[in-house]
């Protein structure tokens, strides 16, 4: 990812120069980040209270069935399945498993990525060669087929073992983060502040933990979100394929049942649109947060994302001009990079056409 390279750019203060109180990472307050955070907060709320808010038990067969799903009504806000189970209740109950699996997988994969990526970048030599090979091979092996084969053999369809599934997803999803971290550590290894820590006689784990790690936090956060998005899609896919116990309610299992009874060909949209939309919205929320982190890392992307009104307010020309990097104080609002940007403000000069 090219956005990452600019962390090491000369204009960005290195962590040792920032007083400890200012080292907090605050995301730019852009519309994207606000939308992402709000959406995400709603999903967290539903994951915690969803099953308590469900009007019915997701398995409860509400009326004698004639095998035809009923469209949304006052009694069933999102209609019913072919067994007359309440779709809204299934949707609410199904929030928790997918969030738990996704965040567990994201956390486990991030730990793996940090351990392997940082070790490869910091120690170099043979360690780097071997770990890089491991990272690159993991990157090119297609994950979903491997997961399908693994879960197929493990027989996870008979029991819902969410933590196990989360760990398997993590094993296939850590390499991207490790690669990005390795490159970043490689570029920091010989910087002055790391060199001087080494000269003082600091032990490697302390240099990594206290000198290098703090400036890796945005990248780690970004790779964590990336893995969570990946885990959401993967868990939903595995459930949709019927590789996860079909009586364990999650958004993927809802789609599995809807697909099995050919809801999409029968026009029963209220059955498959809510869970699919929920997956997409949760993914979008996390991706929007990731945009925020990207913009935090690379100020150029931030200015490019300014709204028209904001750009005019910041005194930028209406249309961008080539060679003019609109890194504005306005765009940097809410980040701890704001002060350094004032010093580097780029004059608004006309460029000959």
């Amino acid at each position, binding site marked *: 990812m090219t956005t990452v390279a600019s962390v090491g750019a000369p204009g960005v203060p290195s962590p040792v120069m920032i007083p400890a109180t200012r080292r907090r990472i605050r995301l730019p307050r852009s519309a994207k980040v606000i*939308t992402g955070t709000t959406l995400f907060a709603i999903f967290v709320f539903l994951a915690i209270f969803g099953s308590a808010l469900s009007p019915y038990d997701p398995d409860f067969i509400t009326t004698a069935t004639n095998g035809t799903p009923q469209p949304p009504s006052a009694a069933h806000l999102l209609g019913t399945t072919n067994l007359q189970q309440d779709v809204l209740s299934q949707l609410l109950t199904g929030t928790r498993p997918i969030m738990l699996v996704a965040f567990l997988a994201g956390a486990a994969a991030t730990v793996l990525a940090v351990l392997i990526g940082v070790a490869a970048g910091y120690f170099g030599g043979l360690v780097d060669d071997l770990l890089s090979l491991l990272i690159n091979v993991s990157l090119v092996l297609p994950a979903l087929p491997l997961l399908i084969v693994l879960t197929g053999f493990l027989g996870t369809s008979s029991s819902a073992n969410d933590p196990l599934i989360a760990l398997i997803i993590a094993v296939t999803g850590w390499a991207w983060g490790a690669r990005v971290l390795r490159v970043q550590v490689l570029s920091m290894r010989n910087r002055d502040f790391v060199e001087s820590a080494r000269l003082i006689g600091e032990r490697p784990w302390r240099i990594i933990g206290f000198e290098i790690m703090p400036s890796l936090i945005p990248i780690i956060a970004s790779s964590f979100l990336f893995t969570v998005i990946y885990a959401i899609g993967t868990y939903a896919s595995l459930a949709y394929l*019927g590789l996860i116990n079909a009586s364990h309610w999650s958004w993927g299992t809802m*789609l599995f049942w809807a697909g099995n009874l050919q809801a*999409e060909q029968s026009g029963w949209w209220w059955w498959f649109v809510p869970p699919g939309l929920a997956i997409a919205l949760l*993914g979008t929320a996390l991706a*929007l947060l990731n945009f925020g982190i990207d913009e935090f890392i690379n100020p150029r992307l931030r200015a490019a994302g300014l709204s028209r009104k904001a750009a005019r307010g910041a005194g930028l020309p209406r249309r961008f001009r080539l060679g003019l990097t609109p890194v504005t104080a306005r765009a940097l609002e809410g980040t701890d990079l704001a002060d350094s940007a004032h010093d580097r403000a780029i004059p608004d000069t006309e460029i000959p056409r």
Partner: protein
Amino acid sequence: MGTVKALARKLAFYLVAALIAITIDFFIPRMVPGNAVAAQLANLHGTITPATLKGLYEEFGLSGHQSAWDQYVHYWGQLLHGNLGTSTSFYPASVSSVIGGGIYWTLGLVGIATLISFALGTALGIVVAWRRGSVLDNVLPALTFFQAAPYFFLAILLVALLGTSLHWFPLLGGYSITENPAWNLGYVQDVLDHAFLPALTIVLASAAGWTVGMRNVMVTTMDEDYVLMAQAKGLPKRRVLSYAARNAILPSVTGFSLAIGFVVSGALLTEIVFSYPGIGYLLKQAVLNHDYPLLQGLFLIITFAVLAANLIGDFVYVFLDPRARREA
């Protein structure tokens, strides 16, 4: 000289990757706790010949006569002879013939859809970056949605909207049963009709990734001095744009290796939604019927295809970027 060396290094890497994939494929059935495989094989008594069953027991290391190393060597021997075993769900067909029946559908569909999506997505990324600050910036959040939605959900939506409601396209399969599979115009037209929705799904879902990636690199590249220089010289806008774009596309070519695995995975699920007669559909059949030999064979074939696509991407990169040749 440098070119050959760089290409040889890439080739060696993918050989190692293939070796590891084959080894993983060997170990997966042997790592399974309990005896899920043995239980499934026991179900097959009576449906397949005793000799085949004995072969299956040996293939999964359940006969207990051979050491793990001997089994591994035997497995390699079988593989080098192109023998992937016998499918239990399509019995008595061999795994290779079952896969052979599906692979061309997948190669055609996924190959063409991926090329279209790469071209479209990259072009859109260039335009969005070039006109940054305009209304086009609003394209990005919309694209994020397509990126976050699982392939199979987009596929379901397209079936419901364009297939069921509007009846514009056939819903399922790779061709109509009524068509006689021969190389005439009617059949080709029929195959294209059936491929349209699955291909549209793959393009919609994967183009967003190329667009966002290309746009982000392009925004940075447009601030490079040589782009400013080109502009200052008074070159036409189109020339300036092409200079910037040609340099910005390099990371996209590198990113191909990361993306192609995702695209193939998504495409397999898309096939399942459309009951498209390719590798994804076979994968689902193998999982449903606990057809372990077919499952193993499919994993190998999919992995090899992804590795081959990567190798091609890397070779293209070596030719595009002189720096890649110098490093080696």
